[in-house]
């Protein structure tokens, strides 16, 4: 099937903005910055079947920056994992969609998360298990272990546990583990470079023996190409530093602003964006 990629991204973005407006919720900016990453993964890169979310041979996505889960919901809903009507229950009483992902409630959500610095360790454990399992499986070759993708936020890289997991994954040569960092340069209460500088970020990952690449995180074509090229080096986990813009495609007032972490669109902005 052929898809119009940018149309899908635009639909996902509208659904995110709608969920955010309806629930008057926070975390719009970081949800909008990772749209293309998720669209590339779910429509082009990952081996998944929305009808079989528990298929043991599926690729997994562990969404570690779980506060931006609106983006994941919008993608899963549009990809057919659950009815799009569920979007109306986002952060509502008795709704299905919590403000931070919960496993076992929403099809396609692989882990419960919400506290930063947990996803990469769990992803490493799962990648370790999948490699171990498939090594005993004669049907499989070295090149088709199920893969575990994980999306981290940039601010999340402040957490020490991220770097514990980075050591572990490299030591155990988990080349079926692929981390994408949504590097929108803003964390909850300031610019990354002002709060706790991460630079040189790519070199840090390389020093931890990961193979690292940088990409324009809003260029679907480039993202797809680079994601399909993983593992970049056999025997090494891969990390993609995706340069993104916080609030991309959202209300102009919130683009690249700390406020995009907290403010929903106004009624006027909502009308203008949704049409």
């Amino acid at each position, binding site marked *: 099937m052929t898809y119009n990629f940018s149309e899908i991204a635009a639909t996902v973005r509208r659904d995110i903005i709608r969920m955010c407006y309806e629930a008057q919720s926070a975390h719009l900016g970081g949800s909008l910055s990772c749209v293309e990453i998720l669209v590339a993964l779910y429509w082009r890169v990952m081996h998944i079947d929305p009808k079989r979310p528990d298929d043991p041979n599926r690729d997994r996505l562990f969404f570690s920056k779980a506060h931006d889960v609106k983006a994941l919901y919008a993608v899963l809903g549009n990809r057919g994992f659950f009815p799009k009507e569920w979007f109306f229950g986002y952060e509502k009483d008795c709704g299905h969609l919590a403000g931070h992902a919960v*496993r*076992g409630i929403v099809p396609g959500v*692989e*882990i*419960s*998360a*919400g*506290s930063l*610095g*947990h996803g*990469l*360790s*769990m*992803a*490493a*454990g*799962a*990648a*370790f*298990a*999948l490699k*171990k*399992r498939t090594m005993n499986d004669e049907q499989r070759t070295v090149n088709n272990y199920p893969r575990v993708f994980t999306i981290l936020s940039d601010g999340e890289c402040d957490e*020490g*546990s991220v770097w*514990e*997991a980075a*050591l*572990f994954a490299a*030591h*155990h040569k988990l080349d079926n583990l692929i981390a994408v960092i949504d590097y929108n340069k803003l964390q909850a209460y300031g610019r990354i470079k002002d709060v706790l500088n991460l630079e040189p970020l790519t070199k840090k990952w390389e020093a931890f023996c990961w193979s690292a690449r940088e990409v324009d995180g809003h260029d679907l074509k480039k993202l797809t190409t680079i994601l399909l090229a993983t593992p970049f080096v056999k025997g090494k986990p891969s990390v993609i530093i995706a340069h993104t813009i916080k609030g991309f495609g959202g209300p102009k007032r919130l683009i690249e602003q700390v406020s995009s972490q907290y403010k929903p669109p106004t009624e006027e902005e909502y009308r203008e964006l949704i049409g």
Partner: protein
Amino acid sequence: MRTAFAKTLLILAKKDKRIMLLTGDLGYSVFEEFQRECPKQYINCGVAEQNMTGVAAGLALEGYRPCIYSIIPFISMRNFEQIRNDICYQNLNVKIVGVGSGFTYGPYGHTHHALEDIGILRTISNIVIMAPGDPVEAELATKAAFSYKGPVYIRLGRNGEPVIHTKKPKFTIGRGIVIKDGTDATIIATSNMLDSAVKVAQGVMKSVRLISMPTIKPIDAELVRDSIHKTRAIVTIEEHSIIGGLGSAVAEVIAESGGGIPFQRIAVPDRFTKTIGTQEFMREANGLGIEQIVKKIENI
């Protein structure tokens, strides 16, 4: 207890390849045989307990049955949020095993003392907490933990505790074990204070019902209520903070039972001990010496 645990784990792991042992760089002279016999089921995760706990959750998500191991403070506090979110929130089949209950590492200082583990872990939903009192209970608790699907914390002592149970008792998660019956007072002991409790029971001039309580959560409320009816006082003994441990769990049952009864928690007072010393010394310094306990019980 440590050896009983390691031996039992090895037997289980040989039969079930899904069992994985993850250690936070500890286990010298304990896990060598496991490493030799089951090398593919062993990971030394390094001194990185938070990651080890998350990795265990990831392994469990994919159908493995991991067991994580370290000294109690590092396997219950350093990684507390990973235990709560990654393991218990997702109700995953991970076993958490800590060594060095109470003042086992007495001379090392309070960083290594295990006095709050039961209290903090008891507040997390989905977790079972076991604190075996001798090598026999350690073996039975290990077996019970791996035949149970879900998060379990096992609090171990050290090596070389005396065997209390000469016959293997009936062991069920959530059930206490009546070691001897009596009518004046019930002594409920857990973890590495079981041996002392046996000596205390022999030392007091009272008819004592002695209960070993190897599961703290869920607490055997039925047995506590039964003891309210059958004896005239209840005393709990543990090498844990007086806040949050066995004594608190039993007190909750007594308070809600409607049956008032003289009750005393014998545990480590709510303070950091200023001196350090051997386990025996630390017990005396905290009112947990056998004669000290006997005196407290005589005065009830």
